[in-house]
């Protein structure tokens, strides 16, 4: 990077090239750090006040500093760039700097394996260069296979500079220096850049000359997660005697973040300070702890639990005989429904590399299937340890290559045969002609495929070109927090927000049709009848309705009084927690707080069982807790318990239980019932509403059906 004094010059109100170049480098290093590939980066500054490089001798190569040697970039480098990278007071020849970089690459890649060597030059070219060595430099670049990229404050092309319009969006770099032409050094420099780039790459070379501004736009997207495809060699078999050697690659799959969060101590930030302990305990009142070694595994068989040890399970389980890709038969493609694709990946199957016989055999199959519009149904097993799948192999013929596309299909057990009421011939829902034409117009106005000037249809919203916003956001926040540990998290970047919105042109086009839809279709949010009933039930707001629940509990309490007389109740037991609790509250032998605490302890225990009988018991407990709280005028304990219970519903999978609470309308105690409550009646009414959680698949990890990637992590 050129840090010479001319890099700091700029028109008033303009960002100096130095700052822009610095940002480009920051973004570039950021991407490298989060992509965590093994690329190594060095940083050479020229125009520095000092000199620090291997070639400096006898006044040559002065004011050039090797700031960082070739190594993997890290946060330290990011911080250095942030705080230590300052404009210099000198100017240095960028060709000299190029030579220093070449030397650095040559010296520091010795003994290392690499795929590519690249030098990126960020400069304003505003210095006198000696061109006499140019040919030598170009030759040695070619010999060493080093590629070059230039980043300049202005575009390469003079015309673009003049009319201010490059091919990039928005104001292009030309506006960085409006009205000011280039210095003679810069003009000369540009010629040399063109010269070098065309000698290296011929015409395409000029594409590697960028402006700072364009680079910033492109680099602000974090590198997409890139994984090396892992080859899966196998044999495609048809019957017992026809075999074709193939290789599969995972082509499409949901990419996950590479790292998970670790738990650290809030003060020390050390993860070793946090210990996690899992204990096993019996379902008795004392929650007696049991050693892990004293447990065995079992499975539910109806109302029984059948002990079935891991060893036995392994011995008796289904065993597959290793990897395979065996054709079971062929079928019409139309019989395979797109929405019944299973699994999380698509595998592309090619013939084995460098085996032309296999290539011809597979090609025959692909072309036969393609012309018959058929697909192969195959048994697929990734390896001996993984479960077999049944899937479809579709033919795929591209201009450059042919392959099969393999997708998993469902097993009978995977399908849920739900029926839904009919829509089309249902008088209540049948749309009228005018409604249909409104929908028709809406669709026409919102097409995301448009015709360009040549009549080609262009997709204006390609999802597969959008980077996963989850990763972009995560890296943005990680980077921000890494550099500014005490700042709050930044907002989502505007470009990312835009990328997730409907394209502007479409939004504008659909205004009128959307208004039409709005007027033609009456849509009204339904006020829940159930909830109305709830408030009436619970709060007794309508006096003429008998309050069935209250009566029931009162009866129970009288019954309890008799019990109390018979025996002393000192704590809330597990047999009849409601009775015990009510007794404790009446007797006042323990404080109300304590009684409640004992009761909630029992409730938690009951809920740990997750079965309907225990749910009913828990509901009775909660009902009693509520009633007693209302009559003691203490809403806080109950409300805070209910709130924490609600929070724990997703994690403990208590949705079913919560549904029961909804049925019984056991909600928070509102101000209307107890003065001290901080909950409004409306909040109480809404409290029970819950978003349903997606069913969580508890698939044992080792049973995972084979992934082409699994082995990658083990290498």
């Amino acid at each position, binding site marked *: 990077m050129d840090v010479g004094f001319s890099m700091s010059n700029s028109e008033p109100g303009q960002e100096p090239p130095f700052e822009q170049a610095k940002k480009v480098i920051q973004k570039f290093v950021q991407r490298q750090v989060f992509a965590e590939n093994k690329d190594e980066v060095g940083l050479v500054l020229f125009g520095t006040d000092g000199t620090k490089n291997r070639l400096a001798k006898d006044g040559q190569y002065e004011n050039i500093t090797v700031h960082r040697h070739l190594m993997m970039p890290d946060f330290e480098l990011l911080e250095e760039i942030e705080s230590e990278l300052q404009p210099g007071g000198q100017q240095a020849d960028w060709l000299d700097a190029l030579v220093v970089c070449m030397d650095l690459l040559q010296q520091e890649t010795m003994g290392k394996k690499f795929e590519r060597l690249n030098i990126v030059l960020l400069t304003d070219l505003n210095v006198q260069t000696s061109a006499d060595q140019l040919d030598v430099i170009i030759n040695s670049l070619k010999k060493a296979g080093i590629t070059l990229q230039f980043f300049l404050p202005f575009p390469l092309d003079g015309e673009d500079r003049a009319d201010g319009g490059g091919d990039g969006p928005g104001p292009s770099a030309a506006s960085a220096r409006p009205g000011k032409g280039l210095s003679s050094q810069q003009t000369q420099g540009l010629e040399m850049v063109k010269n070098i780039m065309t000698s290296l790459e011929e015409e395409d070379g000029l594409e590697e000359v960028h402006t700072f501004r364009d680079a910033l736009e492109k680099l602000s997207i974090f590198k997409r997660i890139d994984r090396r495809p892992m080859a899966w060699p196998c044999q495609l078999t048809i019957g017992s005697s026809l075999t074709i050697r193939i290789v599969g690659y995972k082509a499409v799959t949901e990419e996950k973040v590479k790292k998970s969060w670790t738990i650290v101590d809030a003060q020390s930030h050390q993860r070793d300070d946090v210990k996690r302990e899992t204990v096993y305990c019996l379902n008795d009142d004392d929650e007696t702890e049991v050693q892990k070694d004293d447990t065995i595994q079992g499975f*539910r068989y109806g109302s029984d639990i059948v002990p079935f040890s891991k060893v036995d399970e392994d011995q008796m389980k289904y065993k597959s005989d290793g990897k395979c890709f065996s054709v079971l038969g062929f079928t019409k493609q139309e019989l395979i429904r*797109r929405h019944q694709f299973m699994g999380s990946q698509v595998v592309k199957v090619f013939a084995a590399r460098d085996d032309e016989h296999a290539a011809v055999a597979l*090609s025959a199959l692909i072309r036969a299937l393609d012309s018959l519009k058929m697909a192969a149904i195959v048994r697929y097993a990734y390896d001996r340890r993984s479960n077999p799948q049944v899937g479809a192999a579709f033919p795929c013929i591209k201009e450059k290559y042919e392959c099969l596309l393999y997708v998993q299909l469902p097993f009978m057990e995977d399908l849920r045969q739900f029926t839904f009421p009919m829509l089309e011939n249902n008088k209540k829902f049948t749309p009228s002609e005018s409604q249909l034409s409104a929908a028709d117009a809406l*669709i026409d106005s919102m097409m995301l495929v448009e015709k360009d000037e040549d009549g080609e249809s262009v997709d204006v919203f390609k999802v597969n070109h959008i980077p996963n916003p989850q990763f972009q956001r995560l890296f943005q926040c990680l980077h921000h927090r890494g550099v500014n540990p005490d700042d709050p998290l930044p907002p989502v970047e505007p470009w990312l927000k835009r990328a997730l919105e409907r394209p502007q042109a479409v939004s504008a086009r659909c205004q009128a049709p959307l208004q039409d839809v709005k007027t033609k*279709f009456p849509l009204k949010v339904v006020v829940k009848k159930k909830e109305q009933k709830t408030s009436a039930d619970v709060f007794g707001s309508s006096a003429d309705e008998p309050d069935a629940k209250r009566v029931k509990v009162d009866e129970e309490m009288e019954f309890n009084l008799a019990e109390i007389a018979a025996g002393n109740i000192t704590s809330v037991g597990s047999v009849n927690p409601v009775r015990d609790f009510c007794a404790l509250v009446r007797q006042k032998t323990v404080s109300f707080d304590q009684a409640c605490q004992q009761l909630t302890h029992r409730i938690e225990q009951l809920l740990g069982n997750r079965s309907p009988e225990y749910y009913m018991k828990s509901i009775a407990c909660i009902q009693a807790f509520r009633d007693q709280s209302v009559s003691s005028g203490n809403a806080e304990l109950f409300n805070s318990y209910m709130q924490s219970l609600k929070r724990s519903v997703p994690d403990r999978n208590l949705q079913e239980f919560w549904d029961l609470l909804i049925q019984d309308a056991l909600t928070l105690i509102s101000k209307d019932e107890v003065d001290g409550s901080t909950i409004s009646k409306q909040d109480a009414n809404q409290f029970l509403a819950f978003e349903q959680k997606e069913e969580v698949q508890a698939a044992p990890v080792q049973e995972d059906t084979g992934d082409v990637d699994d082995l990658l992590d083990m290498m």
Partner: protein
Amino acid sequence: TKTMRLRRTKRILECVRSVYTSKIISSDKDLVALVFYGTEQSKNPRNSFKHVYVYHDLDSPGSQRVLDIDKLLGEKGAQFAEKTIGSGETSLGEALWCCSNLYSDIKLRLSHKRLMIFTCRDDPHGGDGAKDRQARTKAADLKETGVVIDLMHLTKPGGFDVSLFFCDIVSPPEDESELGLQIEPCRKLEDLQKRVRAKELKKRSQSRLTFSLGEGVNLAVGVYVLARTATKPSAVKLHRDTNEPVRTKTRYFHAHNGGILLPNDMKRAQVYGKKQIVMEKDEVDEIKKFDDPGLVLMGFKPMDRLKLHHHIRPALFIYPEEEQISGSSCVFTALLLKCSEKNVFALCRYIPRRNTPPRFVALVPQREELDQSQTQATPPGFNVIFLPFADDIRTLDAHVGPTASDEQVDKMKEIVHKLRFKYKSDSFENPVLQQHYRNLEALALNMLEPEPIEDLTMPKVQMMDARLGPLAQEFKDLVYPPDYNPEGKPAAKRKTAESGGGAAEKKPKAEISEEELKNHVANSTLGKLTVPVLKDACKQFGIRTTGTKKQELIDALTMQLSK
């Protein structure tokens, strides 16, 4: 005759057994009772009904019940049944009354109540009008409380005449106008005997969401899962001595002072570029929030823009929710009809729940289809197809090779033609699950060995060979040279090349010295080591690693050694 009666009893008991074993696997929370009527002995909760024998009370079934049925089967079983139950006067009315008591004795809310009558007698009371009347009244009472009564009759000489008596007892076929659905008229006894070992799931929406078309035009939809990989039910931990279930409790405590750590005492961290970055748990959640849950319409695209290979997850299904926003069904139906007519799909942004990042989905219209028996084969609604982001698509280095000639392709077409079949999505059972269920059954019912499974995922090689005849050889002659062996492992070549390099290649499991590791850390070259070596190194330095991913091991070592 006695043998005939024995055969019939056996048939029915087998049916009951299969109902039990199927229920245990498909829906183990269902409560089932088994009541015999026309018995000599009586056994029921208050013993108020004569000649009614409640063999199993209404409860969730387990292995004991199946074993109980087994006790009644066979020659010995018949004798046992004769002794304990016997046969006597028949009064279906009493039996139905008893059943209605069984239902009402249950304190739980029952979502669905069904009563199946197994019989071979179309005139059970032999013309006793009073008994017939009583049975009709009791049946009507039951139906009133929401019980569906089904008849599972055996064939009998001269045919079983439902119109004689039972037509008044059973529930009428479900009202067409109510659901607009055609239900199969009568389930057959044979259906019951088919053992289905698959978990049955209740139709329940995964979530109810707002579907925004833009500008405040919102409808409500329910999101349903119609296909999801079924997995083995999870194991339960038991106490070794008592077989009592045990629960797990997880807690965090401080390594030095042993104090319990509450959620607020902990934070989350990740390491990037050798730096630890720390966040609050709430922040970690907040990062994932982009918008409120819901579907937001982006626009429409022609169906051919939906690529076959753009698949990352099983699809979902949406259906309008009139109860949330009235009018939803009408807009939904209009969109469904028009999308399907214009052959387009709707592209939407989908956020399933709070603090979940968005995904883009294609809503593909699906109109209702009925099968021959007028049963719904595909429901009306939109299939929700998940679309991949740029990160989900991998760059592959395609293999380019020679292509086949027309002659070769034609030969393969013959092969394809010989092996064609009609694919149906429900025709393959998962052999892993089926084996697991049979193993469980064998253990629970004290069987000597599990019932064998038929592995439908295996190719029927013999049949295929027979159908192909000489075609396979003919094709091979066209594409493979005589000395070519496609089964030869290509790996063999590499092996010989390696063996030349000497046995030194096979590296012994060498522990790596601290110095070497430090060098690797300094040069950021830890990545060159293998996972086992890294794991050993972690152990060596007593580094606790939660992760097993390579990068996590590297981070852990880097943190430790650069201290």
